[in-house]
């Protein structure tokens, strides 16, 4: 019997967050904005953090940002990721302010610097409706 390929955990969108995932499918980064406090919000929520305003609306952004921090996982962070190592697990700060979790792709380890400019890479997961938001160095 062939060795079992580990099953990568995929997001299960909820109604609240579906516009973000639908956006990725359309090659757009779409996040929430709260007009009353002029703040951008990620991840998607029912109310704006801190003010708890319920005026959140969806807006498309460039998705570009800077690398806030990262690590290179030399061992799988969970059994599901066996074979993916080394994985560059990143925190990206969007130009609008919020941060998100991603992985860096198309980059040499030696060229990774905290603070570098990065841009979105849309990765359609085969045989699913899911598109993941990965990042690569901006030219």
């Amino acid at each position, binding site marked *: 019997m062939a060795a079992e390929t580990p099953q990568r955990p995929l997001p299960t969108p909820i109604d609240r967050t579906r516009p973000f995932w639908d956006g990725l499918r359309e090659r757009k980064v779409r996040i929430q904005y709260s007009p009353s406090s002029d703040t951008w919000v990620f991840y998607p929520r029912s109310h704006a953090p801190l003010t708890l305003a319920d005026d959140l609306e969806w807006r498309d952004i460039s998705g570009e940002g800077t690398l806030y921090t990262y690590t290179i996982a030399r061992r799988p*962070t969970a059994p599901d990721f066996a074979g993916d190592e080394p994985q560059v697990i990143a925190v990206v700060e969007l130009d609008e302010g919020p941060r998100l979790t991603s992985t860096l792709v198309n980059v040499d380890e030696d060229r990774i610097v905290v603070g570098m400019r990065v841009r979105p890479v849309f990765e359609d997961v085969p045989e699913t409706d899911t598109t993941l938001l990965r990042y690569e160095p901006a030219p």
Partner: protein
Amino acid sequence: MGLRGEAAIVGIAEWKPERRPTAPPMFTLEQWAQLTREALDDAGIDPSEVDGICATNIRESDSFVPSTITEYLGMQVNFAEVVDLGGASCAAMVWRAAAAIELGLCNVVVIAAPSWPSPRPPNPPSGPSSWRYGASSANYGSPQAEFDIPYGNVAQNCGYAQIAMKYGAEYGFDPVALAKIAVDQRVSANHNPAAVFHHVPITVEDVLNSPMIADPIHMLEIVMPCVGGAAIVVAGKDVARRSKHRPAWISGFGERVLHKTPTYAEDLLSTALIPAADQAFTMAGRSREEVDLISVYDCYTITVLMTIEDAGFCPRGEGQPFVREHDLSFRGDFPCNTHGGQLGFGQAGLAGGMSHITEGARQVMRRGEDHQVPDADVAFITGNGGLMSEQVALILEGD
């Protein structure tokens, strides 16, 4: 505002951490009973005097935890608390117990962290265990399940490595200073027969030559998961005065809880410990200079480095030279984790966090034996949960 310092840790039970259990599994309730009995025996207090308990989760019941425990122990209590702050839970339970005692709610509180394996059910439920992603929640609707886990950002190595990388980008990174934390603590572990690494000395080269797990963190900068268990008894003034040992009075505390995932930190390098430590020192009326030893959560070396800074023992960003200039072992000029820390003692689940409290108390009680800090009177303790984002600071004092 705060405690008057009229409640004390008076009894300790602590099972030697083991990498592989040499005794059979025990249900959590059985561990509660055994640990409570040992801690009360240590203090010289009769079980009938217990009128408060602080617990974390137990295997046998997802809810109604305190009443499940009191029923099993045959106790009736005025104070029944469950705390869910990860590695900060035990420290958080200590101040809650002290506060309840000073409010007059109760007089003798047992705090337990049973961390021994439980028997497996005859027909275990199928499917992945809920701990498949460590402390990260894969439950439906969990932000981590949707936005972090799919990218491999799974607690804990990944997040602490991201914190360490950010620290290095801001202040520069000195791998030798970080390694020295593990080495100095190991010296103390080598003098503590209960430590899992009692017989294994290490050098800075050993640490730096150990495999890189998640840049910049090496294997020997990460705690060793163990099994074990611990409990303490916290008692009011009158009971403490007639207990067997010199009491370790709880004179100050602070608690601060921020985020769960480092991605969403307001500032990853401004930890929750800064306000928590300030509050603890202010409440106790103590200065940093008066502290004889620190017993601080050390899941990773970076945790200790940032704790030394954020608790105010040196300016932020200057922890690495500070560590190089001081001897952190029990016989050094800045005793830090004199039991070996969890890095040297072993991390037996939540009992790992308890080990910082038992050690701080032991030192103040002058029961440190081979790793006693001479004339220890004031101990600074932290509990750290999540990823530097749930912090509790405590100050223990002798008479």
